[in-house]
Protein backbone atom coordinates (compact mmCIF):
# COMPACT_ATOMS: atom_id res chain seq x y z
CA UNK A 1 0.00 0.00 0.00
CA UNK A 2 1.27 3.49 -0.78
CA UNK A 3 1.92 5.95 2.04
CA UNK A 4 -1.10 8.03 0.99
CA UNK A 5 -3.38 4.96 1.09
CA UNK A 6 -2.04 4.00 4.51
CA UNK A 7 -2.64 7.53 5.81
CA UNK A 8 -6.13 7.68 4.32
CA UNK A 9 -7.01 4.33 5.85
CA UNK A 10 -5.62 5.33 9.26
CA UNK A 11 -7.54 8.63 9.48
CA UNK A 12 -10.72 6.93 8.26
CA UNK A 13 -10.54 3.92 10.57
CA UNK A 14 -9.83 5.99 13.70
CA UNK A 15 -11.85 8.94 15.00
CA UNK A 16 -8.81 10.71 16.38
CA UNK A 17 -5.29 10.26 15.01
CA UNK A 18 -2.11 12.04 16.03
CA UNK A 19 0.84 11.88 13.65
CA UNK A 20 3.76 12.52 15.95
CA UNK A 21 7.44 12.01 16.63
CA UNK A 22 7.61 9.09 19.02
CA UNK A 23 4.57 7.47 20.61
CA UNK A 24 1.91 8.71 22.98
CA UNK A 25 3.63 6.95 25.85
CA UNK A 26 7.11 7.98 24.73
CA UNK A 27 7.05 11.18 22.67
CA UNK A 28 10.39 12.20 21.16
CA UNK A 29 9.78 15.87 20.53
CA UNK A 30 8.47 18.63 22.78
CA UNK A 31 5.74 19.69 20.35
CA UNK A 32 4.45 16.16 19.82
CA UNK A 33 4.66 15.63 23.54
CA UNK A 34 2.51 18.69 24.23
CA UNK A 35 -0.34 17.61 21.96
CA UNK A 36 -0.24 13.96 23.10
CA UNK A 37 -0.17 15.24 26.68
CA UNK A 38 -3.31 17.34 26.17
CA UNK A 39 -5.20 14.43 24.59
CA UNK A 40 -4.05 12.00 27.26
CA UNK A 41 -4.97 14.40 30.03
CA UNK A 42 -8.40 15.03 28.50
CA UNK A 43 -8.94 11.28 28.29
CA UNK A 44 -9.38 11.32 24.52
CA UNK A 45 -8.95 7.93 22.92
CA UNK A 46 -6.63 8.35 19.94
CA UNK A 47 -4.41 6.42 17.58
CA UNK A 48 -0.78 7.53 17.46
CA UNK A 49 1.38 7.20 14.36
CA UNK A 50 5.11 7.51 14.94
CA UNK A 51 6.46 9.23 11.82
CA UNK A 52 10.03 8.55 12.92
CA UNK A 53 9.37 4.85 12.37
CA UNK A 54 8.47 5.28 8.68
CA UNK A 55 10.13 7.80 6.37
CA UNK A 56 7.42 7.37 3.69
CA UNK A 57 4.69 8.27 6.18
CA UNK A 58 6.79 11.14 7.52
CA UNK A 59 7.00 12.71 4.05
CA UNK A 60 3.58 11.47 2.96
CA UNK A 61 1.64 13.11 5.78
CA UNK A 62 3.20 16.50 5.00
CA UNK A 63 1.90 16.27 1.44
CA UNK A 64 -1.42 14.72 2.41
CA UNK A 65 -2.21 17.58 4.80
CA UNK A 66 -0.32 20.28 2.89
CA UNK A 67 1.37 21.01 6.21
CA UNK A 68 5.15 21.01 6.69
CA UNK A 69 5.46 20.16 10.37
CA UNK A 70 4.77 17.38 12.88
CA UNK A 71 2.65 16.82 15.02
CA UNK A 72 -0.61 16.78 13.06
CA UNK A 73 -4.00 16.02 14.54
CA UNK A 74 -6.87 14.46 12.60
CA UNK A 75 -10.45 14.19 13.87
CA UNK A 76 -12.96 12.18 11.84
CA UNK A 77 -10.67 12.22 8.82
CA UNK A 78 -10.27 16.02 8.90
CA UNK A 79 -6.96 17.78 9.53
CA UNK A 80 -7.34 20.00 12.61
CA UNK A 81 -3.88 21.48 13.02
CA UNK A 82 -0.43 21.24 14.53
CA UNK A 83 0.89 22.08 17.99
CA UNK A 84 0.19 25.84 17.94
CA UNK A 85 -3.37 25.43 16.69
CA UNK A 86 -4.23 22.60 19.08
CA UNK A 87 -2.82 24.59 21.98
CA UNK A 88 -4.90 27.65 21.02
CA UNK A 89 -8.02 25.55 20.49
CA UNK A 90 -7.57 23.82 23.85
CA UNK A 91 -7.32 27.12 25.67
CA UNK A 92 -10.22 28.74 23.79
CA UNK A 93 -12.54 25.74 24.25
CA UNK A 94 -12.80 25.16 20.48
CA UNK A 95 -11.25 21.71 20.84
CA UNK A 96 -14.00 20.75 23.30
CA UNK A 97 -16.60 21.95 20.80
CA UNK A 98 -15.03 20.01 17.96
CA UNK A 99 -14.90 16.80 20.03
CA UNK A 100 -18.49 17.26 21.20
CA UNK A 101 -19.68 17.91 17.67
CA UNK A 102 -17.81 14.82 16.47
CA UNK A 103 -19.28 12.65 19.20
CA UNK A 104 -15.92 11.89 20.78
CA UNK A 105 -15.92 11.44 24.52
CA UNK A 106 -13.48 13.35 26.72
CA UNK A 107 -13.15 14.56 30.28
CA UNK A 108 -14.60 18.08 30.33
CA UNK A 109 -13.38 18.72 33.87
CA UNK A 110 -9.82 17.92 32.81
CA UNK A 111 -10.11 20.33 29.87
CA UNK A 112 -11.37 23.05 32.23
CA UNK A 113 -8.47 22.30 34.53
CA UNK A 114 -5.98 22.90 31.68
CA UNK A 115 -7.63 26.27 31.00
CA UNK A 116 -7.65 27.19 34.68
CA UNK A 117 -3.96 26.38 35.02
CA UNK A 118 -3.04 28.38 31.92
CA UNK A 119 -5.35 31.34 32.50
Amino acid at each position, binding site marked *: MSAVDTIKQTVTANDVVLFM*KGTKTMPQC*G*FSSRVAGVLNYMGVEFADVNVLADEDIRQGIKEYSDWP*TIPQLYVKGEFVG*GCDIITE*MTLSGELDQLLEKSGISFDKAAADKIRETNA
Partner: protein
Amino acid sequence: MSRTEKIRVALEAAFQPRVLEVIDDSESHRGHGGYQEGGESHFNVTLESDKFRGLSRIARHRAVHAALGKELVSEIHALSLTLRD
Protein backbone atom coordinates in the same frame (compact mmCIF):
# COMPACT_ATOMS: atom_id res chain seq x y z
CA MET B 1 21.28 36.99 5.25
CA SER B 2 20.60 35.04 8.45
CA ARG B 3 17.46 32.90 8.65
CA THR B 4 16.00 35.34 11.17
CA GLU B 5 16.40 38.15 8.61
CA LYS B 6 15.04 36.00 5.77
CA ILE B 7 11.93 35.22 7.81
CA ARG B 8 11.47 38.87 8.73
CA VAL B 9 11.88 40.12 5.16
CA ALA B 10 9.51 37.52 3.69
CA LEU B 11 6.81 38.16 6.27
CA GLU B 12 7.10 41.97 6.07
CA ALA B 13 6.61 41.77 2.31
CA ALA B 14 3.70 39.34 2.38
CA PHE B 15 1.67 40.67 5.32
CA GLN B 16 2.64 44.32 6.04
CA PRO B 17 2.23 43.37 9.70
CA ARG B 18 1.35 45.77 12.52
CA VAL B 19 3.35 43.54 14.81
CA LEU B 20 6.15 41.21 13.81
CA GLU B 21 8.39 39.40 16.24
CA VAL B 22 10.85 36.78 15.08
CA ILE B 23 12.57 35.11 17.98
CA ASP B 24 15.33 32.57 17.57
CA ASP B 25 14.40 30.16 20.35
CA SER B 26 17.02 27.56 19.46
CA GLU B 27 18.96 27.90 22.71
CA SER B 28 16.04 26.58 24.74
CA HIS B 29 16.11 23.44 22.58
CA ARG B 30 19.86 22.78 23.02
CA GLY B 31 20.44 19.05 23.14
CA HIS B 32 17.00 18.26 21.72
CA GLY B 33 16.19 16.97 18.25
CA GLY B 34 16.99 19.35 15.42
CA TYR B 35 19.24 21.66 17.43
CA GLN B 36 22.07 23.02 15.33
CA GLU B 37 25.25 24.65 16.63
CA GLY B 38 24.91 28.40 16.06
CA GLY B 39 21.14 28.34 16.52
CA GLU B 40 18.54 29.40 13.94
CA SER B 41 16.80 26.02 14.06
CA HIS B 42 13.80 26.86 16.29
CA PHE B 43 11.79 30.05 15.84
CA ASN B 44 8.84 31.68 17.56
CA VAL B 45 7.02 34.12 15.33
CA THR B 46 4.26 36.50 16.38
CA LEU B 47 2.50 38.25 13.54
CA GLU B 48 -0.44 40.64 13.50
CA SER B 49 -1.82 41.58 10.12
CA ASP B 50 -5.07 42.70 8.49
CA LYS B 51 -4.42 40.04 5.86
CA PHE B 52 -5.46 37.34 8.33
CA ARG B 53 -8.95 38.77 8.68
CA GLY B 54 -11.57 36.19 7.79
CA LEU B 55 -9.02 33.35 7.54
CA SER B 56 -9.23 30.18 9.63
CA ARG B 57 -6.32 29.19 11.85
CA ILE B 58 -5.18 26.61 9.32
CA ALA B 59 -5.43 29.11 6.44
CA ARG B 60 -3.34 31.67 8.39
CA HIS B 61 -0.60 29.13 9.03
CA ARG B 62 -0.65 27.99 5.41
CA ALA B 63 -0.32 31.60 4.24
CA VAL B 64 2.78 31.99 6.41
CA HIS B 65 4.26 28.72 5.16
CA ALA B 66 3.66 29.89 1.57
CA ALA B 67 5.21 33.31 2.21
CA LEU B 68 8.35 31.73 3.67
CA GLY B 69 8.66 29.27 0.81
CA LYS B 70 9.39 25.55 0.79
CA GLU B 71 13.14 25.93 1.05
CA LEU B 72 13.19 28.12 4.13
CA VAL B 73 10.45 26.08 5.83
CA SER B 74 12.40 22.86 5.24
CA GLU B 75 15.58 24.40 6.69
CA ILE B 76 13.87 25.35 9.92
CA HIS B 77 13.42 22.53 12.40
CA ALA B 78 10.58 24.10 14.36
CA LEU B 79 8.40 27.12 13.72
CA SER B 80 5.93 28.18 16.36
CA LEU B 81 3.38 30.70 15.08
CA THR B 82 1.06 33.10 16.88
CA LEU B 83 -1.06 34.77 14.18
CA ARG B 84 -3.63 37.47 14.88
CA ASP B 85 -5.70 39.79 12.71
